[in-house]
């Protein structure tokens, strides 16, 4: 899942013919003030960061005039919201609404359906509405093989309690939202609130859009604006995380190398397989050790990728040891992995006699792999040691050598 910043989301809605508020992106307080001056109406100033619930985080401010807008932007720019640095703000016209509605369209994995959630109680946390007055929410699950027809949309909006002109108007809009959701391979499109004004206009003041990063190959125009990978760490990438990303992207279709930097800890963690890495991390903790990063690699990576990943892991200043473990591989070549690891260690001047390293790497071409590791003085195991036992051995070795 990749989050799309709000201004791009609003651009998409606008391009699809939906009425959205007047807005602009400002990188300085003065720019924000100038836009407020230009439209000559009260505005909303929001930190432009790829997260939801910004109001609760204090990242949404209201301003009645240009001067207030300048001040609001000044108070937001340069701060951090949930770890994200605020480099830009969104300045949007403030609209007076008589009704505030809630819309969300998302993929419901367990039933393999698209879920449409609608409520007339918009503008607040939908979780609260769901908890306190569930009757105010209508949820509809669509059959993905069928068209979301006009009557589906009318049925939903009628059920939630809209009537007359508003019913017809908003139902048309919901159908449009649904089409946009499909067209852009979205995983979430949330409009909260949708405004109905006293003149009967329906206008979108805000939107949250996430798209499937697995579909970016066919959403070329979104690729540049998607904060790809943000789901793996809901915070900006650290320096080492960025470097591992580069290592991976150099040869993106062969093997995986993922790295998440963690607070504290001293064991460089380099484990393989989606499930195997989860298990190994649990076992290190259970044995009383603490990894200083999480890593997952596998899928038969080339030597350069293993080498690059190992170097990045070992480059963190708090690393005092290295644990490499994976399940018995189906296709990953152990000799290739061993070469990458040994190259990284030699290049960094690490001596396995004093720096604790434990490897547990059974699988394809393991005999050659073990030979390479042993020759470099690295403690290595195959299937004779389970992953859990290898983790215990690692923690024990840390205690011996430190």
């Amino acid at each position, binding site marked *: 899942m990749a989050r799309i910043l709000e201004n791009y989301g609003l651009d998409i809605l606008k391009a699809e013919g939906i009425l959205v508020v007047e807005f602009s992106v400002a990188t300085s307080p003065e720019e924000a003030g100038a836009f407020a001056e230009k439209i000559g109406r009260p505005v909303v100033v929001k930190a432009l960061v790829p997260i939801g619930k910004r109001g609760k985080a204090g990242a949404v401010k209201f301003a009645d005039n240009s001067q207030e807008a300048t001040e609001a932007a000044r108070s937001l720019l340069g701060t951090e919201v949930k770890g994200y640095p605020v480099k830009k703000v969104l300045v949007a016209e403030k609209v007076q609404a008589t009704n505030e509605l809630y819309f969300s369209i998302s993929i419901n994995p367990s039933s393999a359906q698209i879920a449409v959630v609608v409520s007339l109680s918009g503008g607040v946390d939908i979780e609260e509405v769901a908890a306190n007055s569930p009757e105010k929410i209508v949820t509809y699950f669509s059959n993905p093989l069928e068209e979301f027809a006009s009557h589906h949309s009318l049925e939903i909006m009628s059920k939630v309690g809209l009537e007359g002109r508003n019913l017809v108007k908003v139902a048309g809009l919901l159908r449009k939202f649904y089409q946009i959701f499909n067209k852009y391979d979205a995983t979430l499109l949330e409009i909260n609130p949708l405004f109905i004004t006293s003149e009967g206009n329906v206008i979108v003041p805000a939107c949250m859009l996430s798209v499937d990063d697995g579909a970016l190959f066919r959403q070329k125009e979104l690729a540049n604006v998607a904060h790809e990978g943000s789901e793996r760490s809901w915070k900006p990438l650290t320096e080492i995380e960025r470097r591992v990303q580069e290592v991976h992207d150099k040869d993106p279709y062969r093997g995986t190398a993922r790295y998440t930097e963690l607070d504290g800890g001293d064991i460089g963690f380099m484990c393989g397989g989606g499930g195997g890495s989860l298990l190994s991390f649990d076992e290190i*903790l259970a044995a009383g050790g603490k990894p200083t990063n999480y890593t997952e690699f596998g899928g038969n990576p080339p030597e350069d990728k293993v080498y690059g990943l190992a170097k990045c892991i070992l480059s963190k200043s708090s690393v005092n040891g290295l644990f490499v473990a994976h399940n018995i591989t189906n296709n990953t070549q152990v000799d290739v992995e061993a070469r990458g690891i040994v190259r990284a260690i030699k290049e960094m001047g690490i001596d396995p006699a004093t720096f604790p390293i434990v490897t547990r790497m059974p699988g394809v071409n393991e005999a050659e792999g073990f030979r390479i590791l042993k020759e470099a003085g690295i403690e290595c195991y195959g299937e004779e040691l*389970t992953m859990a036992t290898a983790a215990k051995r690692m923690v024990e070795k840390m205690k011996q050598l430190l």
Partner: protein
Amino acid sequence: MSILLSDDTRVVIQGITGREASMVTEYILQYGTKVVGGVTPGKSGQMVRGVPVYNTISELMGEQQANTSLVYVPPGAVLDAVREAVDSGIKLIVIITENVPQHDSIKINWLAKKAGAKVIGPNSVGMISPAHHVKLGAIGGDNTERCFVPGTVGVISRSGGMTAETAWMVKRAGFGVSTCISIGGDPIIGTPPVELLKMFQEDEGTEAVVMFGEPGTSFEEDAANFVKSGGFTKPLIAFVAGKFTESMPEGTVFGHAASIISKGMGKPSTKMKKLEEAGALIAYSHDDIIPLLKQIFEKR
């Protein structure tokens, strides 16, 4: 005995001419799997490791009778490949391809449901039934017997790599496996554990099941409810990896795409608690699978 695979399994490989697909073709042929043909549009008449290539499945069906498909086409072509397979009457489709768009995955589910076909994956490493010498996908690589020997334990795993490691635990304990299924690491997959437990319940050749779980989704919770309601009455050993993710910031993916705790849902501790309450035997460490299996079979 086994589920889904049998002596009658006849396989077509969609996307057979790709690098990984042709390597896997060699491994699964060596193991004894009957591969009746491959499909790559525009490459009809070629051979891959002795297997004839056709432009379409319907062209192949004129000469061969495939009942199972192994899908290796690129992510954007998977939906069409599945459509072609179900339209040709194929009833078991195993999707190895990773990164299938979610909008396609939900359609794949519904297409299969409509046609009465079973889909395993996407993002699966495959499945295997040693008694029949049938395997689909890279599972077991070129050294299948190392981890997979015939027996009466079913294996359901959300992790491809850990399918082999778990089967090897079964072997270490002195037993063997009936069918092992890598169900796929995506949030939207064709056949969740409950469906497989239903089949294992019916299968006379399966006496117990080991399940490898992960954070995220409600697969394990659903399995617990199924066991509790009496749908699965054989011994079930459950392991859930990734307990540490509960102390990490919510909404972060560790491991597979589906391995994400969000809004308090999908916690390993909750999964284990529900499974235990339902009567499953919990392996707190993956190593515990061995004594638990011994305990089950020594009772008999």
